[in-house]
């Protein structure tokens, strides 16, 4: 096991990694910019390292400075968290070249899945379903030919992109040609690479993703999550299991995902994202890192994914870390419980006895709401000083809080204030607990999306498990709330 892990991140995820390190008996070094000196992750880590400056480019994404700080802190491993440098293959190689273990997959895997047409090709060859699409589009002639072959509508996507940034939809040849130049400019601006490709736009898809773990030889899928409540392609609410998807269907796609990652010798935590439309799965992308919504899988499986990620990076094998039986999808808990919270542990063990006897019912449900610093009506980020920031302590509610009272939300970093994860033996209970947790979280000094989250968690479509990735935006468009009035969707 490592002796000292350097955390090249901030906020909610940095605190989560500090906690995992402490539980593993490993020292942690919190990196911090000049704006984050008073952040809780700095106080909780066993040591800290200043990254001078405040812009991300000078601090958390500055490869030279991050590696220099990790070296002088005497770290033997580095955790990149999510965002910032987490999916930068050059960073991963340079960390390794500095003699520090990168807690993530090999740079080659990050590169393979980072280039989206290559990722599509790899998945298709491995037998994973992909939506009709193109290779990289060089010019307008290739563009039109590819679109005619795929069929309308199509989506122009940046090849070096991901996370839904910089995509454009075209419903006709004229729209497509008009969107081509701006899509390339957008891709260049956001990812430093103007390459774009086409993919079929699926009708009202659900976003279903698979949590994968690999040790270089074997890969396991430990469950699925549904993340269909999105806005501007950013996830707002996530849950596990995915409501109403047949377990056989999930088991099949899970096995295909295992085969596709095993073919690359995948060595860490990763997520295979898919879209489910008209009962068919289609590949979306592979995220070669920990995800913001990992907590819902932890709550339904009893696994600690961050600890597992660190232990895999330290060379432990999956068969030592996970129980031998195939991980049942559909939210059924795994046999061994890493989590030591006793009531949950007991419940999981009895669930697993049921599962071994062939019981089909999912055992545990979890729903995560992301609290963002934003004005939900005007869709604008909100900056300011947190004059109140008081996470609730409630039964069946896990809170991942990244800030402390008195800290400022600045324009320099992302707007995620906290995550609230409600759990329970039924989906209804998990949703209710999430709602109560969101409501009870006292935050003042910035606008937040708590009213929007409550409106979603009460909405009949969401309660019925019948939402798709365009649902939230279409509801907001259909029912705009005037300033001061409650959001009703």
């Amino acid at each position, binding site marked *: 096991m490592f002796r000292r892990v350097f955390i090249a991140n901030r906020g909610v995820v940095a605190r989560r990694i500090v906690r995992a390190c402490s539980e593993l008996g490993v020292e942690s070094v919190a990196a911090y910019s000049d704006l984050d000196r008073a952040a809780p992750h700095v106080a909780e880590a066993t040591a800290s390292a200043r990254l001078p400056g405040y812009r991300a480019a000078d601090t958390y994404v500055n490869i030279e400075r991050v590696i220099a700080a990790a070296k002088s802190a005497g770290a033997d491993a580095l955790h990149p968290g999510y965002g910032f440098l987490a999916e930068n293959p050059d960073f991963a190689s340079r960390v390794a070249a500095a003699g520090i273990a990168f807690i993530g997959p090999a740079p080659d895997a990050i590169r393979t899945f980072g280039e989206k047409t290559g990722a599509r090709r790899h998945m298709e060859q491995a037998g994973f379903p992909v939506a009709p699409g193109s290779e990289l589009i060089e010019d307008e002639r290739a563009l039109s030919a590819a679109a005619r072959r795929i069929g309308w509508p199509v989506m122009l996507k940046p090849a070096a992109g991901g996370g839904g940034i910089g995509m454009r939809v075209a419903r006709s040849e004229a729209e497509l040609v008009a969107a081509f130049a701006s899509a390339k400019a957008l891709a260049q*601006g956001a990812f430093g690479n103007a390459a774009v490709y086409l993919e079929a736009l699926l009708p009202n898809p659900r976003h279903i993703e698979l949590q994968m773990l690999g040790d270089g030889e074997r890969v396991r899928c430990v469950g699925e999550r549904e993340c269909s409540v999105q806005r501007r392609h950013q996830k707002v609410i996530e849950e596990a299991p995915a409501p109403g998807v047949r377990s056989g269907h999930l088991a099949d796609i899970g096995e295909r995902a295992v085969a596709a990652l095993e073919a690359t010798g995948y060595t860490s935590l990763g997520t295979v994202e898919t879209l489910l439309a008209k009962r068919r799965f289609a590949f979306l992308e592979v995220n070669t890192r920990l995800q913001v919504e990992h907590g819902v899988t932890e709550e339904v499986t009893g696994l600690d994914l961050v600890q597992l990620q660190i232990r895999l990076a330290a060379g432990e094998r999956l068969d030592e870390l996970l129980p031998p039986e195939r991980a049942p999808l559909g939210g059924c808990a795994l046999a061994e419980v890493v989590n030591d919270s006793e009531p949950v542990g007991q419940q999981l063990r009895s669930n697993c006895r049921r599962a071994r006897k062939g019981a089909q019912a999912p055992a545990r449900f979890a729903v995560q709401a992301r609290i963002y*610093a*934003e004005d939900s009506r*005007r869709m*604008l*980020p*909100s*900056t300011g000083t947190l004059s109140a920031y008081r996470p609730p302590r409630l039964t069946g509610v896990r809170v991942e809080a990244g800030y402390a009272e008195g800290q400022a*939300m600045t*324009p320099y*970093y*992302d*707007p995620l204030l906290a995550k609230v994860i409600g759990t329970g033996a039924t989906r209804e209970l998990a949703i209710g607990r999430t709602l109560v947790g969101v409501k009870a979280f006292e935050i003042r000094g910035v606008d937040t999306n708590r009213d929007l989250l409550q409106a979603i968690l009460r909405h009949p479509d969401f309660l019925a498990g019948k939402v798709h990735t365009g649902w939230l935006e279409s509801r907001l468009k259909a029912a705009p709330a005037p300033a001061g009035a409650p959001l009703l969707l």
Partner: protein
Amino acid sequence: MARVQIESEVTGNVWKVEVAAGDAVQEGDVLIILESMKMEIPVEAPEAGKVAELLVAPEDSVEEDQVVAVIETA
């Protein structure tokens, strides 16, 4: 001829300036793109006219309600 002051809706940084002083613009044209909390926030022309003044440059920081450009309308 009326001068219309255009204000930033957020605290953030200027990412791109899409027009130059003297340019003719239509209602809804993007003048400036701001960046805040990893989101792009376009500043659009509220009506058609000519760009009279651009008061910010890329990488400048801006406050909420700060005037970032002035347009002369016909």
